[in-house]
């Protein structure tokens, strides 16, 4: 998967929402092709853009935790698949991972809990400013991504069917 491949098979939101080419909602998404492309490119940058002190494997672990906390089942499958296929999936997590997971879970469920003190455990665990920015972007992006998927799935369901 690369940032330039925008085919449906590679588009994470299409797959998580169950959209395929030919589906009217798949076509409706392409009314905003720039949004589709930038969303997928954001996903790719969040996972693969090199950031000192933040491995791809730990980012995927954080992503999976956010999806679990938010009940985003199909996106969780996506991140679990990426974890299983990661080059270094057997590598030990960073000692900072527990602090990262706590930060991610809190921020996912209640963004009001964000305060200066919430960054201290991350700094104490050795994360620098670039890693903290990348972690905050990851969690914040997932809040967007999982809501787009949930909204698309709601739009796909026939009217009158129990949700």
């Amino acid at each position, binding site marked *: 998967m690369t940032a330039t491949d925008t085919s449906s098979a590679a588009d994470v939101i299409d797959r998580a929402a169950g959209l395929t080419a030919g589906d009217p909602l798949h076509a409706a998404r392409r*009314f*905003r092709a720039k949004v589709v492309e930038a969303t997928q490119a954001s996903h790719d940058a969040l996972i693969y*853009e090199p950031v000192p002190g933040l491995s791809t494997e730990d980012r995927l672990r954080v992503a999976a935790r956010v999806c679990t906390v938010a009940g985003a089942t199909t996106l969780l499958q996506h991140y679990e698949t990426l974890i299983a296929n990661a080059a270094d999936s057997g590598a030990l997590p960073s000692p900072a991972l527990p602090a990262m997971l706590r930060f991610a879970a809190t921020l996912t469920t209640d963004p009001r809990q964000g305060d200066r003190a919430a960054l201290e455990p991350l700094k104490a665990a050795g994360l620098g400013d*670039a890693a903290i*920015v990348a972690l905050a972007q990851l969690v914040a992006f997932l809040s967007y991504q999982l809501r*787009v998927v*949930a909204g698309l799935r709601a739009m796909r369901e*026939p009217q009158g069917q129990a949700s």
Partner: protein
Amino acid sequence: MIRRNGFTDESLEWRSWLEPLRVDEASPLQLEVLDESHPQSRTSPYYLTLAHQPLMLRHRSAAYNAIMYAPGGLRRAERELGAMVVSVTNGCVYCTSVHAQRFEQLAKRSDTVEQVFDDPRTAGTTERERAIARFAIAVTERPAGLGPADIAPLREQGMSDEEILDLLHAVAIFGWANRLMQNLGEPASP
């Protein structure tokens, strides 16, 4: 000027809890991404903080600008209404101030802003605005529970799939924007 429940439509500043990038130490890529993100980003603590991860900022800005400013589809004032309702629901005072102002500029009125500050659950001067506000709250508070019953009121207002998607994007990206603003810094009075 509207001030209620801790929210305001006055201009605020934002202070970073991290060290914003210094422009004189920025890489060529970081400068390029700053300049394509926002006209004032070289002096903005928010953009200078996000520029620590430049490719992410590039794609975030592209998504944000396409969602909030692209022509056609849902009226821009209605995208701003969605953004404002989410920001109030998430308690993001800074984002609320910015998008309350944008709504006022685009809609040329502020009655809905007062209502959203008072209680977003009942806000809206028309049934269409109320439907938009309720959808924004549902997406924000219970994404895993969204279903066709949350979409139906928007369709009853005559919205096409493309317009509903525009609203969904605007609402969802404030789940993103609010979390950055609330977790990397805080609002400050100018």
